[in-house]
């Protein structure tokens, strides 16, 4: 039995589950980034270093940063945007 792979696969699923049920959105995104990094290890185990690079850089890195950036946007007080006189809302 490939115990290492089993452990990795299990951890990936648990991380994904945590990312989905985390109460705090910020924690969910962090779990998602961890999930992406674990995925890229899984790709190495699958003899796919190209995918591992792409997953780490794009899947986990870029998607994660995009999500974090959006979270930062959400956390700004909503009123400050509505008060903006130029804002077409």
């Amino acid at each position, binding site marked *: 039995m490939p115990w290492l792979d089993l452990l990795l696969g299990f951890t990936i699923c648990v991380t994904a589950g945590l990312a989905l049920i985390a109460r705090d959105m910020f924690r969910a995104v962090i779990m998602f980034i961890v999930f992406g990094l674990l995925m890229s290890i899984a790709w190495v185990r699958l003899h796919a270093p*190209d995918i591992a*690079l792409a997953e780490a850089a794009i899947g986990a890195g870029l998607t994660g940063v995009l999500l974090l950036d959006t979270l*930062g946007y959400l956390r700004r007080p909503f009123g400050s945007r509505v008060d903006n006189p130029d804002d077409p809302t």
Partner: protein
Amino acid sequence: MILRIVLAGLLCLGVTVALGWAVLERPMPVENLPERVASAMPESGVEHPITAVLLNFRSYDTLLEIAVLLVAVVVALALREAQPDQPEQMGLDNPLLRAVMAWLLPLILVVAGFLLWAGSYQPGGAFQAGSVLAAAGVLLRLAGVTTNWLDNALLMRAGLALGLLTFLGIGLLVMLPGVPFLTYPAAHAGTLILVIELTLTLSIGLTLLSLFRLTPPYADDPDDARPQEDRNL
């Protein structure tokens, strides 16, 4: 709400069971594609099989994939919030970070170049190198470094377009001897793929970068040139 979760649970269970059944019962394929790839490698112009698949055997997929990225950028430009971030007022304007960046940037560029060059015989290639370039751009922005050429909307868009235009141009030019689209002549395949990869790397880097709100203001729109509230992440 409860109904929604029960429904989702049932659906998820059903799909998982069906998938498991499909995995257990799957037949062994007769067709051996890896072998075909291996035997066509000498004609592909590169030594790394994945680069050969991405940029030669299935280069049409890659062409359309770049189009997908560009569509996302077009929508981002169209829906651009009327409040682009000004470089002066964003990021962590920290002298230490700037100093580190001055050292880090050349290193990042070297890594990107290596990834691109390595793609022809070992893991790496345009996408990975492009994303490293994008990361460099993000860091630059975070450090508050003003990069005039990145703020020039036309130059920026020319950079975005360069990859796909080169790809299309080469794909069409090679048709002159009467062969199908994207048929690289075996003798020049390596060079042509390298040219395509180089331009793609630049375009992919800029594309990924412009998916952030860190991108330069949209010059066509005079409304964009006004001061901004700062952003804290």
